[in-house]
């Protein structure tokens, strides 16, 4: 098949978006299922093509497919922009992740969103998102990438605010867009800086310029930092992390797809895509590692105390994205992307599980759940598998990728390694706190919208969860012998030992397994058998608990102090006053002065010709005198 078919991978979802919004929604609004079907059909085709592309890339020399460009804007002697696709191993892996998770989420949504009045709108946006996300990973130049980077941000905005009649959702959507745009500002500035210095947007060319050293020094560092700031915004890394927990206001399948598996991982992808720019600047790479490592533990602490199941998962996502950044900063593309690859499946599964639980109980508050193991065996089983995977229990997928990140950080950033180890413990604790509170014990009645006894979700929702659960087990096997690392081109593997059992011959995996086990045990002790009282512990660490629960007061700092008081309420309000009374006041002042002057002068216009004649005479005299003296 010709390689141009790769274009279809992202164009197909765009077609489905166009068909739904132009035909189905206006004319077939009474047949809501149609929108879902066409989305699923187009994504199945995209997935098929993605698999084909992966096969081709594996077979191709240098793991890259050549695809012809299209001209976009050309200004002779100024700027030349082509649109093109870049299909290498990194792209191929991302294509699989995005199209597969998206397909599963769309199938699940058929059940979860059933009966929602915005059904067509939902699938239209989901198609648009998937298409943009696929285009983002395919783009071969930074500008084209930025275009779709903004488009996925738009879809995120639209889908967080899907239930726009709820003020919380509308606020969260706006917050997500503006906070990520703050990061995008850095990304755009970096694009301008790179173009100024190199005259190109092409990623492959930038790679070779960085590798040959033509692009180096402070320029390279600043460009890399700028690009990273875009990644910080999208991937909700500290200090731009505040939008992601609020983004949970969107429908749960949206959280699964956009705010767990794919879009938030775009930041990690961006760093990986521009990796040569980072790897040739020590400062930039260290920044990535430090921000990532810090975010991992910072977010985990907040995850410890949240009572909303989706918010726990949101902080867990931020924390895991931090791990990926740490992996990129200390190891290499393969390390970070391998965790992204595994994380996409088990985190999407966790969110779908949360949605399934919500479907049954009408709440997201884990304090109102409990005992769901009996009622929802499939949800329970898949959720536990995903939890074990994220915690990093051998031999599930999370184990393999987390192990590599720990090993590579031990090598280059020992402090971050200890933080990451501590995070392993926290991850285990908060995940199993959720598991025990949700599925263990007795049913505590659910939310106000709950109807009778909880029940297992319909098979259309369970089936995608089972598929993802299988992946959460096996996806890590790709790199048991370093296959993933080799495919991504550099053969990095930082585990100290290899092989399915062989890896256990080194103490490091044992150390992390013990920490994870302790975390699970502590959660078991507190929330399942209640050897320890949660309240007692909470009051023992009251200040710390408050600090975590109030999210370190970052929301207050940003929204009230920085934006509310300093900018909008302070500076901007001052400028508004200045505009009304200063600038416009001056204009009106000039006008009033003129009018007043006119009034004064009017007195001179007496209508008496003698007086006018006198003035004319004085004027002529003055002119003659002037000519006489100066002429």
């Amino acid at each position, binding site marked *: 098949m010709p390689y141009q078919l790769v274009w279809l991978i992202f164009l197909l979802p765009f077609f489905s978006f166009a068909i739904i919004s132009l035909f189905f929604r206006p004319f077939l609004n009474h047949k809501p299922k149609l929108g879902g079907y066409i989305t699923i059909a187009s994504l199945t085709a995209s997935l098929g093509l993605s698999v084909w592309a992966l096969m081709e890339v594996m077979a191709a020399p240098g793991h890259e497919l050549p695809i012809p460009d299209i*001209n*976009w*804007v*050309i*200004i*002779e*002697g*100024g*700027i030349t922009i082509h649109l093109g696709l870049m299909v290498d191993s990194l792209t191929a892996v991302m294509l699989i992740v995005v199209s597969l998770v998206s397909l599963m989420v769309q199938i699940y949504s058929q059940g979860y969103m059933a009966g929602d009045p915005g059904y067509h709108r939902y699938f239209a946006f989901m198609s648009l998102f998937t298409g943009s996300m696929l285009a983002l990973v395919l783009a071969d130049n930074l*500008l084209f990438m*930025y*275009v*779709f980077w*903004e*488009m996925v941000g*738009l879809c995120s*905005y639209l889908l967080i*605010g899907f239930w*726009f*009649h709820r*003020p919380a959702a*509308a*606020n969260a*959507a*706006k917050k997500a*867009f*503006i906070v990520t*745009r*703050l990061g995008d*500002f850095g990304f*755009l*500035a970096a694009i*301008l*800086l790179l*173009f*100024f210095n190199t005259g190109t947007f092409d990623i492959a060319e930038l790679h070779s310029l960085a590798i040959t050293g033509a692009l180096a020094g402070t320029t390279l560092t600043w460009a890399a930092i700028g690009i990273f700031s875009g990644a910080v915004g999208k991937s909700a890394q500290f200090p731009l992390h505040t939008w992601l927990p609020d983004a949970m206001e969107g429908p749960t399948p949206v959280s699964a797809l956009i705010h767990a598996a794919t879009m938030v991982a775009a930041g990690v992808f961006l760093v990986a895509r521009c990796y040569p720019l980072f790897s040739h600047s020590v400062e930039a790479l260290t920044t990535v590692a430090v921000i990532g490592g810090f975010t991992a533990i910072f977010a985990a602490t907040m995850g410890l105390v949240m009572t909303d199941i989706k918010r726990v998962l949101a902080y867990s996502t931020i924390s895991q994205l931090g791990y990926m950044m740490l992996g990129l900063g200390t190891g290499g593309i393969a390390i970070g992307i391998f965790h992204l690859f595994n994380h996409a499946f088990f985190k999407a599964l966790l969110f779908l599980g949360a949605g399934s639980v919500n479907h049954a109980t009408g709440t997201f508050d884990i304090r109102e759940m409990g005992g769901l193991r009996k009622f929802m065996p499939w949800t329970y089983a898949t959720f536990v598998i995903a939890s074990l995977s994220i915690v990093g229990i051998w031999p599930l997928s999370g184990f393999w990728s987390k192990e590599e990140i720990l090993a590579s950080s031990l090598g280059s950033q020992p402090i971050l390694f200890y933080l990451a180890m501590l995070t392993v413990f926290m991850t285990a604790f908060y995940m199993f706190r959720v598991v025990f509170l949700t599925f263990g014990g007795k049913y505590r009645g659910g939310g106000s919208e709950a109807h009778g006894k909880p029940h297992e979700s319909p098979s259309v929702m369970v089936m995608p969860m089972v598929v993802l659960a299988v992946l959460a087990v096996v996806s890590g096997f790709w790199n048991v012998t370093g296959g993933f690392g080799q495919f991504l081109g550099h053969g990095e593997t930082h585990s100290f030992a290899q092989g399915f059992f062989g890896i256990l011959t080194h103490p490091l995996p044992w150390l992390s397994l013990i920490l994870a086990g302790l975390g699970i045990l502590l959660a078991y002790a507190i929330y399942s058998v209640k050897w320890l009282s949660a309240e007692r512990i909470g009051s023992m660490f009251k200040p710390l608990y408050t600090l975590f629960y109030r999210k370190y007061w970052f929301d207050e700092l940003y929204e009230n102090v920085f934006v509310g008081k300093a*900018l*909008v309420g302070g*500076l*901007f*309000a001052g*400028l*508004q006053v200045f*505009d009304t009374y200063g*600038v*416009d006041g*001056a*204009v009106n002042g000039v*006008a009033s002065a003129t009018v007043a002057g006119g009034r004064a002068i009017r007195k001179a216009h007496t209508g008496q010709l003698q007086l006018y004649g006198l003035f004319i005479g004085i004027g002529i005299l003055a002119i003659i005198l002037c000519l006489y003296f100066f002429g």
Partner: protein
Amino acid sequence: MDFNYLTTIIFLPLAGAIIVAFVPNLHHKVIKWISAIFTFVPLALSIYLFAIFDRSVGAIQFEEKLSWIPTINAHYHLGVDGLSLPLVILMTFLGFLVVLISWKIDLRPREYFAWLLLLETSILGVFCSLDLLLFFLFWEIEVIPMYFLISIWGTGRKEYSAIKYVVYTLFGSAMMLAGILSLYFATGSLSMVDIAQTGLATFTAVIPVAAIFFLLLTGFAIKLPVFPLHTWLPDAHTDAPTAVSVVLAGALLKMGGYGMIRLCVTIFPQVAQQYAPLLVAFAIVSVLYGAAVTLRQTDLKRLIAYSSISHMGYVLLGIFALGQVSLVGATLQMFSHGIITGLLFAMVGLVMHNAGERDLRKLGGLVRQMPIIAVVFSIAGLGALGLPTTSGFAAEFLVFVGSFTSTVVSGIQVYTILGVLGIVITAGYILWMLQRVFYGPVLEKFNGVKDADILERVYMFAFVAVIMLVGIYPAILTDVIKTGIMPIMGLLGA
């Protein structure tokens, strides 16, 4: 040249205005149809010109030249190049659509449409004139219909706003006239082309060349507008009737930007280079200051009006970065802003007309009652905040790239980065506005409020189609614009 395309395009609306004004006993409907036809034909013709425009040369095309007042060497001289053609299309496009937007006008429709059509003729004349006197004449004529349209069909403090507009504009044109006369007395010519080609070096002017530059620039800066000469704009926009706001924001402001490129940069390349750092600084102040003040507005229409100040700051930045890409970007930004803000004002008009409310603190939840208006309003808003795939992104990006890489102003990179910061604030006020108008709980007081009707959907679709077309494939315009910019680069010695 067999057929005088430009004369036809310019004066057809005037012919329509004369018919509407002087043929007695015309029914309302007939007046509207006549206006629609007499604006649609220029639109069709200008698109035809766009299609046959020779993109391989950087020359003035479709030229018409007749001797007009031989004693002062004034000519009736028309022509378009890559710089003015997009603006001509912009005006004919808006000219036709504002007739549709005004379809519900019932107050004195005969006069209303006559003034509206005269307005179109005068703006088209400004974009097509190559003779300074003719240019000035068209520039002045525009004030008259504007005054009546705002003061009769406007809202709020309409008389104040109309007078303010007139006085401000006349103040600017007085400066401009002084500038044009100085040029004429120095060179003995009124032809923009000739003066630009020979340059001013060989002439001695009564006043320094830089002074002539600033006389002209002041007139254009008021129109654009540039901080601190902007305060007429929020008042005029806010109090004008919807269709007039659309023309005002869409096409009229562009006379300022066009004049700066056509006269200030082309005739005074050296002076422009000398003072570029100052003007770039003013551009950035306009961008950031405009955006900051916009964020404080609580009146829907006033908010959109203020946003223009910020967006036109990008035009000024692109012009006085004096780079090839930046000038193309500035021209594209003028076109793009015309369409996007035109649509925004049209949507504001619909919301105000249908919901009877314009205070952002009292609006809310309207997406239930007016889903189509909400979607189109959002698309226009996203265009204004520079979302990729809309024309706003293509234009702003070219301005940024062009300014960042410009070699004329040292340290322009810092200015550009500050300008880029403006897009964050823009996102803030646009999304805040959309949320205030459309999202949140559905309000009972708006029950029964109507969505867009068929005619309104038609013109909305036309706007959206242009925004997306230029956004997805900007080369459709940049290929034309760059032929107009290339000769200017030659004059700048770059």
